[in-house]
């Protein structure tokens, strides 16, 4: 977190370049980086339900934004050269970098930026970020290089939120099957169900990438993905799904295993609107009844971490809250009795049908049986989860992984699927957004998170590890992959 309020720095390549600096010795600038991934984009438009795969392939590679969310969680200017904020915090003026052209050859203008932001806020937009930009009242373009955004209320996260907004040529039209961005790479080829290839864009305004392009190969089976790396069909794989797979890559002369910081949290969310989960004592009892360390170990071995709340260490408002409702089945039983359930109760746990949810569900069932609570495991698909749980809120409790960065603010929305409603938290989350400084924002959110944790709003199980494996010849790739991004420009291959 170091968004400058009045930033005139040219950060250019930010962290990616730093990462690659050490590896540039024998790097081959003509190398094509072969990336193996499980997340095939469904289309090429991040506002049209393309899935996380499109962020992985395109963010900062094909499309840039006014700001960039770096791999360390900081936000730095990208296409914005200058960012000025009015005294009341409601008017933000952005000056665009000069000499930027789209892949189609057209120059970047303020109108393109306005168009791009309105794409995300448009009625037809499927972007999950739409809501966070709802504070925008108007966008003006006094000249070709200046964009002025007026807000309804102050928004400290504006630069961060704008880092999700691809700057697209306003003449591009439908971009579900083509692209027109300003990034260092342009789309070379896309074969649905198989692969997507990018090649370096000669007219890029910034420094040349450390490679000449990349191919993303897509897999549906984790085993096939691992085999691809083992057989040298890819150079790097972006996500390892289980610790068992790592044993194959133990040969340190051939492979490199890196563990970054993830933002993916597995949680058991209760429907806080319905009994018995509207009772804070019941929620706290269930939190204390689960040995999360043991669960994490069963699923991830010695990787990942137990959080104790919804906030991962990459958020500035993180603090260790594992002691609030630490594992203690005895006190769990006592709390249940106090809440009026001395004999326990029965509930249905909506369990997505993919790993690790079914394993976790079985574990929870065994743990909660020890305090007399019976779990009925109901297995559903991702699609059913969305319609039944997220949309219709027709559930008692559910397992889910939440992948987003900075998403504790969801607890400030009483309409969210889990139905946590604490006016104090809602107020703090709103106040945090209206903060003047990032320190103030962090303080407010830290306070909110403490209340959420004391309320045991959900049962936060653990934070996934973020594991990237590559061959030893490949260096300079991002480790944390925040927002599923995978910056290519710094990746070098010997």
């Amino acid at each position, binding site marked *: 977190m170091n968004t400058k309020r009045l930033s005139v720095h040219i950060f250019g390549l930010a962290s990616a370049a730093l990462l690659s600096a050490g590896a540039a010795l024998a790097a081959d600038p003509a190398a094509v980086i072969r990336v193996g991934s499980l997340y095939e984009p*469904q*289309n090429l438009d991040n506002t*049209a*339900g393309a*899935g996380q795969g499109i962020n992985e392939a395109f963010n900062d590679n094909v499309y840039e934004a006014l700001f960039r969310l770096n791999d360390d969680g900081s936000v730095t200017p990208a296409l914005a050269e200058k960012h000025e904020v009015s005294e009341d915090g409601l008017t933000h003026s952005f000056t665009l970098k000069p000499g930027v052209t789209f892949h189609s050859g057209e120059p970047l203008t303020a109108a393109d930026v306005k168009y791009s932001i309105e794409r995300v806020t448009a*009625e*037809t*937009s*499927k972007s*999950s*970020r*739409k*809501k966070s930009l709802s504070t925008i009242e108007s966008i003006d373009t006094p000249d070709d290089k200046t964009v002025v955004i007026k807000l309804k209320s102050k928004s400290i996260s504006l630069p961060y939120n704008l880092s999700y907004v691809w700057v697209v040529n306003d003449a591009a039209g*439908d971009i*579900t*099957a083509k692209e027109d961005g300003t990034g260092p790479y342009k789309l070379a*080829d896309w*074969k*649905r*169900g*198989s*692969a997507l*290839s990018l090649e370096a864009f000669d007219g890029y305004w910034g420094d040349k990438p450390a490679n000449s392009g990349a*191919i993303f*190969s*897509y*897999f*549906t*089976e984790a*085993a*096939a993905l691992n*085999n*691809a790396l*083992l*057989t040298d*069909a890819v150079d790097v794989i972006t996500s390892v799904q289980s610790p068992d797979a790592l044993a194959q890559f133990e040969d340190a002369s051939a492979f490199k295993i890196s563990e970054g910081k993830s933002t993916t949290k597995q949680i058991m969310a209760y429907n806080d609107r319905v009994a018995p989960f509207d009772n804070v004592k019941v929620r706290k009892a269930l939190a204390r009844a689960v040995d999360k360390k043991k669960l994490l170990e069963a699923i991830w071995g010695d990787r990942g971490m137990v959080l104790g709340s919804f906030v991962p260490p990459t958020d500035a408002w993180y603090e260790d809250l594992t002691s609030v409702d630490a594992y203690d089945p005895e006190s769990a039983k006592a709390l249940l009795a106090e809440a009026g359930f001395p004999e326990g109760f029965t509930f249905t746990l909506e369990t997505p049908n993919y790993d690790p949810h079914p394993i976790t569900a079985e574990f929870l069932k065994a743990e909660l049986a020890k305090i007399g609570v019976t779990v009925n495991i109901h297995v*559903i*698909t*991702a*699609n*059913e989860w*969305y*319609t*039944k749980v*997220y*949309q219709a809120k027709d559930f008692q409790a559910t397992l889910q992984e*939440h992948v*987003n960065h900075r998403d504790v603010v*969801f607890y400030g929305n009483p309409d969210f699927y889990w139905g946590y409603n604490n006016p104090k938290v809602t107020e703090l989350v709103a106040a945090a957004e209206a903060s003047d400084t990032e320190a103030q924002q962090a303080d407010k959110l830290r306070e909110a998170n403490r209340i959420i944790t004391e309320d045991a709003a959900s049962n936060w199980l653990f934070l996934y590890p973020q594991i990237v494996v590559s061959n030893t010849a490949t260096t300079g790739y991002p480790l944390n992959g925040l927002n599923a991004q995978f910056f290519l420009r710094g990746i070098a291959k010997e």
Partner: protein
Amino acid sequence: MGRYLLRRTFVLALSLIAAGLVLFVLLRLLPGDPAAALLSVGADEAQIAAARAQVGSDQPIWVQLGMFLSDLARFDLGKSFVSGTPVLPEIAARLSVTLPLTVASFLLAVAIAVPLGIISALRADRWYGALLSAVSQLGIAVPVFWIGVLLIWLVAVKWRMLPASGFPMKGWQDFPGAFRALILPVLTISLVMSASLMRYVRSATLDVLGADYLRNARALGASFPRALIRHGIRNGAVPVISILGIELASTLLGAVVVERVFALPGLGSMLLLGIQQRDYPTVQGVLLVSTLLVLLIGFVADVVQRLIDPRLRETVAGR
């Protein structure tokens, strides 16, 4: 024969329409909403409503059915809800992987199963006849994905002779690459398929060997190989062709598993993803096309049987 073909074509068309209707209804009975595939956690009510309007899942089912049928009448399978691209060209692209995979596996399986099946029947009393029979029994018991995983581990990972998975981006334009990519999947399917086929060929041959007409032919002075080729194969082929038709059809559908193990961009992976996302146009399109292919295979098998066996032709009713 001409009338038979006409009637058979009519039945085929009717079956296809019936299959389409059943598919349409069954898909919509599944819980879930195609709009969900377009959205993620964080979307608000208005976005959900807009997505439902876009894919038409907010419309009553008969309105959806009317749209589906009117599109179908124009040979338009619609556009994928999720990717927004037309389904038909996508299916064509996927078939360029699935069809060669299926046909090559089938031909190889037949090439393995027919001679081995005949040998194991003719030499049922020898040790290698018994061995062949035992091996084919084992082959039936082994799941196809297990053979795939084993072959990948041995040939691709350990020996590095062939790619472990995937298909070249340029498809068949990169002929050597595409060919190499299909070797292991074809081997996987044909090994398993030839095991069961061999059993059928073997029992058909055993039936023929005990048949009166073969004994008669021998009594009339034909040599054993001549009697077998002239009378035996023709008679034995009729039941085997039915089985071949069924096997070919199930290979086409069973390719789903193998495509997944080998990460091939075929029809199967398209179908699986379509089902997960409740992408109705994709699922309907893939299933209609594969139903058509299966019906066509059955059609061809019937016709071929009739050509081989005059008795089938003579029955007036045809069946």
